């Protein structure tokens, strides 16, 4: 894949150079989208990682990293975009993660002649690469894209290999707790970002009985017997603390609570599967198995 695609990338670059030589520079630039709306935290991160942030004109609610992105106008929640709101920033390209919408809005945007590129959302290392590839193609940045893909996939393989080695033959069981509304635990089953990152970090999701995020009974949690509890860091005293997992009836019976194994991590880093996925894997693996090993 790498050989043929870098070959074609080379050809493209050569072609572009030839065109530049022949045509006035503006003509080439005019074809490239220069007013981009980025929908999805990972998508925005990739645009920044490719050094193309100058072309961004707006972002969605989840695009908070890097911090500079927050200064861009916010077009709202990805699944409830307003057609006029998006058009008001006069975009020529919309880069949106899979599932953005609603479809009525997308239809109007396409009618207005705005190019719409859907970025796939798959919770795995290959998914991260596919995202970068899609964004790089849409931005016409094959070289920078290839460089970023090489870098990220190297980092990911290294992080995953290290995580597997650390885990050894006895991977730990991790319970991802999304929320603890009124003492009831909502945890991640299979097919979620949390499930993906836990697997990549060389651990096992303690819940495999259902898909998505669901509320669990106290007994089901005890039966799942997680060694580690993973939660999103909401800052301050919010969310779970070591004290609270030992006092919540739902959790106090688990090995995790008895050993005080609670990990809190930045939710955006953990679940977005963007260019920082490798460091998420590394951080999570270290937190689960300890850095010393």
């Amino acid at each position, binding site marked *: 894949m790498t050989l043929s695609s870098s070959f074609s990338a080379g050809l493209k670059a050569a072609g572009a150079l030839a065109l530049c030589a022949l045509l006035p520079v503006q003509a080439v630039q005019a074809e490239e989208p220069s007013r981009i709306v980025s929908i999805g935290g990972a998508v925005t991160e990739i645009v920044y990682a490719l050094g193309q942030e100058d072309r961004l004109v707006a972002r969605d609610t989840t695009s908070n990293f890097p911090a500079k992105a927050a200064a861009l106008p916010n077009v709202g929640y990805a699944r409830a975009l307003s057609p006029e709101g998006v058009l008001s920033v006069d975009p020529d390209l919309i880069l949106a993660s899979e599932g953005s919408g609603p*479809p009525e809005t997308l239809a109007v945007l396409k009618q207005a002649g705005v190019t719409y590129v859907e970025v796939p959302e798959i919770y795995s290392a290959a998914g991260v690469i596919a995202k970068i590839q899609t964004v790089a193609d849409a931005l016409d940045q094959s070289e920078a894209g290839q460089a970023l893909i090489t870098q990220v996939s190297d980092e990911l393989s290294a992080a995953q290999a290290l995580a597997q080695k650390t885990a050894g033959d006895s991977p730990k069981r991790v319970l991802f707790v999304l929320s603890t509304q009124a003492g009831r635990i909502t945890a991640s089953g299979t097919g979620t970002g949390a499930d993906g990152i836990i697997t990549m970090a060389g651990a096992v999701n303690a819940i495999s009985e259902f898909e*998505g995020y669901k509320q669990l009974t106290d007994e089901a949690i005890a039966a799942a017997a997680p060694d580690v509890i993973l939660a999103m860091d909401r800052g301050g005293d919010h969310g779970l603390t070591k004290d609270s997992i030992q006092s919540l009836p739902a959790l106090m019976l688990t090995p995790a609570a008895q050993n005080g194994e609670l990990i809190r991590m930045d939710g955006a880093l953990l679940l977005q599967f963007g260019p920082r996925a490798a460091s998420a894997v590394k951080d999570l693996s270290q937190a689960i198995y300890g850095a010393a090993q």
Partner: protein
Amino acid sequence: MSALTTDINDADPSDGSAPLVDRRIRARQLTVLLLLLLLVTSILSLTTGASSASLWNALTDLAAGRDLSTMDRVVLLDIRLPRLCMGILVGASLAVSGAVMQGLFRNPLADPGIVGVSAGAGLAAICAIVLGSLLPSAIQQFLGTALVPIAAFLGGWGSTILLYRVSTRGGQTSVATMLLAGIALGALAGAASGVLVYYSDDSQLRDLTFWGMGSLAGATWTKVLAALPIIGLALAAAPFLARGLNGMALGEAAAGHIGIAVQRVKNTAILSVAGATGAAVAVSGGIGFIGIVVPHLLRLATGPDHHSLLPNAALLGASLLLGADMIARVVVAPAELPIGIITAILGAPVFLWILLNRRGNLGL
């Protein structure tokens, strides 16, 4: 309640406010004012928005025989104009339905939801959002984005028919049975929705939440054209209900004695409300409050005569919803707030203030 009798035999209104003739003139003046208000809000609604599209540029372009710019064409013709039409249809149908229901049930708290439309439509919409992917893909392809609106309309209509059948014995519909059965059906629909919410995934859950808060953002010509005949028919039926509803204020038996076909009034009222509200909920989701606040405001202003109340409610409901929609789309631009939030934030305090100032003068 007694004030509703005014139109029947031209007796003086018993609440002793303005003489009857005065009230009629005032109601007519109000109709003219509300027409002007609707005109103004419509023009504002076409000129307000997050984008730089301009109605005046478009009009001067048209006058000069030039083609519209893409931005003006798409924003004005494909976004703001269908949105304006949908706002008028939905606002008018919610307000008129509310007025009709309050008259029919002789209960100031009645809103269109009372005949089970909202519960049924909500349940069907949730089914469509959560279980839509289980349908054969050919049907999914065919229906596309129309799946949720169609399901909501059929669900709303179906639950009203069910309630109506439950509460009709020997050709006589018991309003009290319908009210109580509506509560039971609402609870059942709520429980069924709960089960589906439990099985929905994250993104479906977000869709459900947004659906419940209502929005005109998804307005398309298809939706407007689909809702227009149903809402139009229901609104056209409303004037014929006015005399009957005025009579019903005396109680069903008395209304029958003064020559009102009580059962026919009930049939027409229930079916037209189910149609209008079902269609409104289907295209715009759950928008609360309009059906309660608009009729009450108008009763306070010009009294409870349904001859003027129903058309005025249509006009004020439409203007109010257009106003709320304008706020919804500019206040967090380029993002957008769900309109149900705006109608409640604006409507509730105003309504409370008026109630506190004009207590005991509700006319119901």
